[in-house]
């Protein structure tokens, strides 16, 4: 009997499990309901995006970049384009910069909303996901009007953006941001003080900065453990140094503080959106793109690295060129890739139910990790 009680059970969670949001496979060793070992397996969504870049022209690769992380495509376009633009030695017009920031921040809100819905679904709430998706839907409608697509935008081009944003759409955006808080209150009323939610998230999956830094965790997950590393402030790109915003941090590093920070970030992003929209409404005349031949992009030979603060953390695009019309090497540094790795550490000692809560709170998006 004693031996039987001590037997450990290995459960294989995924790749087709309802709460792995995609295709992560976790091999979990259980002692009763306690996890003693957790091994993630990646690669079920590997599309060879780094290899694909070598066969394609610079402009030809551009639409594929949106698909690295389908929930936050703008950030990846920006990372790729700023690396190319660095080698082309051009600076994009002010209007284009504002439009890029505007769309990226809206994208941040939409991605956080999706995360919020899925996180609550992982915790067993059936209703919240619909309210979150409903709000996100409004943002996607705006994107559809601006870019022509809901998720795979292909809107940024070399030297700017494809089109102007018309006044009507800008007013729509202002409408959305003004009504947002009122609509978002439903979710906050449902969750923030709910004792079941607090019980499930507080003090769970504590990611201290001692763990987070060696594991190269960035973004909200790092800021929840006390370090305010935000590349919008650290290495300002585009017009982020002209905008007025704060970087919220928390010190607990648990699931609840990560939740809180994301909620705060939604509000800050909406404020940034408002600032950009106001600026754009008063500067309608400016150009939104340099006149470049999009097909014949030939950056000089060299290496460029771009730092972008994406929804989930730091996105780096290493670009190495040899002066030809195709990139020699493109390397994506994606935040989820590192967040998956830290799961090995955080899962130990928790139950399966908690593993899902931790996994959800880290905001891992698998296509981003697998590339």
């Amino acid at each position: 009997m004693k031996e039987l009680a001590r037997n450990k059970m290995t459960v294989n969670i995924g790749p087709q499990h309802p709460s792995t949001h995609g295709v992560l496979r976790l091999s979990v060793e259980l002692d009763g309901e306690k996890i003693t070992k957790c091994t993630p397996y990646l690669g079920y969504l590997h599309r060879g995006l780094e290899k694909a870049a070598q066969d394609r022209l610079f402009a030809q690769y551009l639409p594929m970049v949106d698909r690295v992380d389908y929930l936050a495509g703008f950030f990846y376009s920006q990372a790729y384009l700023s690396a190319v633009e660095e080698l082309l030695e051009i600076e994009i017009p002010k209007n284009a910069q504002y439009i890029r920031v505007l769309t990226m921040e809206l994208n941040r809100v939409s991605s956080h909303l999706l995360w919020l819905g899925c996180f609550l679904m992982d915790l067993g709430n059936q209703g919240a996901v619909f309210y979150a998706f409903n709000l996100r839907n409004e943002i996607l409608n705006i994107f559809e009007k601006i870019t022509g697509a809901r998720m795979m935008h292909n809107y940024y081009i070399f030297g700017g953006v494809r089109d102007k944003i018309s006044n009507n759409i800008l007013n729509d955006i202002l409408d959305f941001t003004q009504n947002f808080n009122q609509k978002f209150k439903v979710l906050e009323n449902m969750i923030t003080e709910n004792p079941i939610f607090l019980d499930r998230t507080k003090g769970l999956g504590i990611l201290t900065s001692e763990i987070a830094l060696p594991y190269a965790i960035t973004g909200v997950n790092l800021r929840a453990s006390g370090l305010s590393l935000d590349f919008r402030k650290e290495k300002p790109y585009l017009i982020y140094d002209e905008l007025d915003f704060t970087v919220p941090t928390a010190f607990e590093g648990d699931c609840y503080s990560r939740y809180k920070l994301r909620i705060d970030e939604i509000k800050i992003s909406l404020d940034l959106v408002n600032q950009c929209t106001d600026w754009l409404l008063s500067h309608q005349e400016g150009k939104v793109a340099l006149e470049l031949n999009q097909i014949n992009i030939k950056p000089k030979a060299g290496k460029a690295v771009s730092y972008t603060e994406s929804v989930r953390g730091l996105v780096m695009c290493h670009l190495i060129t040899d002066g030809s019309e195709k990139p020699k090497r493109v390397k994506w540094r994606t935040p989820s890739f590192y967040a998956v790795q830290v799961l090995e550490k955080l899962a130990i000692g928790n139950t399966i139910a908690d593993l899902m809560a931790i996994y959800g709170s880290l905001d891992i998006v698998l296509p981003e990790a697998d590339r």
Partner: protein
Amino acid sequence: MINSLIKNNDAVFSAYIKLFNNDDNAISDIAQTIIAAAYPLICFIITIIFATIMVLLLVYLERRILALFTLRFGPNRVGYEGILQTFADAIKLLLKEDCAPKTRKKVFFFMAPFIVLCPVVTAFCLLPFNNFYIQSNIEPSIILLMALASIPVIGVFLAGFSSNNKYGLIGAARSIIQAVSFEIPIGVSILAITFMTGSLNINDIIQSQSSNLGLFGWHFIPQIIGCIVFFISALALLNRTPFDLSEAESELVAGYATEYSGIKFALFFFSEYLLLFLISVLFVCLFFGGYLSPFGTYVLPESLIFIEQIFWLILKTFFIIFFIFLIRAALPRLRYDRVLEFSYKILLPLSLINLNIAVLIQYFMGAK
């Protein structure tokens, strides 16, 4: 002993015989025996038909009501406003290929759905839908009902254990522990009710709540704590959110039913919703006056009272079920160890306090 148990039943049975026997000598003995033999069969068929309709309606209602709270329509294409949707789903499930893992324990795997279903259907005969016709009005009906309602857990365990699936096993273990720990507060709160009424018969309990006060004479006012405890424990017993641990989708895929498909899965599904209906009816009978009218007097003339009583009972039950569905849309799931803590640290003490209150009321006010 047995005679006294089926005493009430005899009365119903003789009434049933008389129904076919307009002038006393017209029916022969043979016909009487045939009718006597057919009686349980007819009861069974009525129960099954009623139960099936109820389950199909409940599944449909759950989807529609959940959709109502989440800004959707729910099924609205098949039939009028999608009312035939669950019927279509049921046909699909019945016609589906029955796949099962090769490594299952065959006998238990086959038995499990029936062990879950049979007691629930059986328990139906104990429910008093009106004052005039109760299929089996035995004296301690509430004890028998609770006993029958706790058998399905064995089937659930067998299902999880025999399907040779780790999710199933964990789900089964969870549901056993959950059932064991939540039956205590349920039992104690029922005990308090029996103290109030001095009877173990559900019909007597309902009758004891009838007064001129109507709504305000029901047990939920003096027994408010017991009412809450019973409701929460019932949620746990039924595996509804926030206690749906044994089939927690985001953790255990489908829990004990992971490897079941086709008609066997349909049986699990069927008994789950039937139990939901059963426990809700019991809850209404114990705390909300069962088939009694909330106004104290019945609206319809005396010959039609039995219909009005059924109407009130179903209405109240659906109100409770609506609330259960609402909770499903609103609350996240509790963690497994917290559920047990909640049961033993909060619900059990509360139910004991409630028992004391019942005793005190009985002591000062006297039996009704």
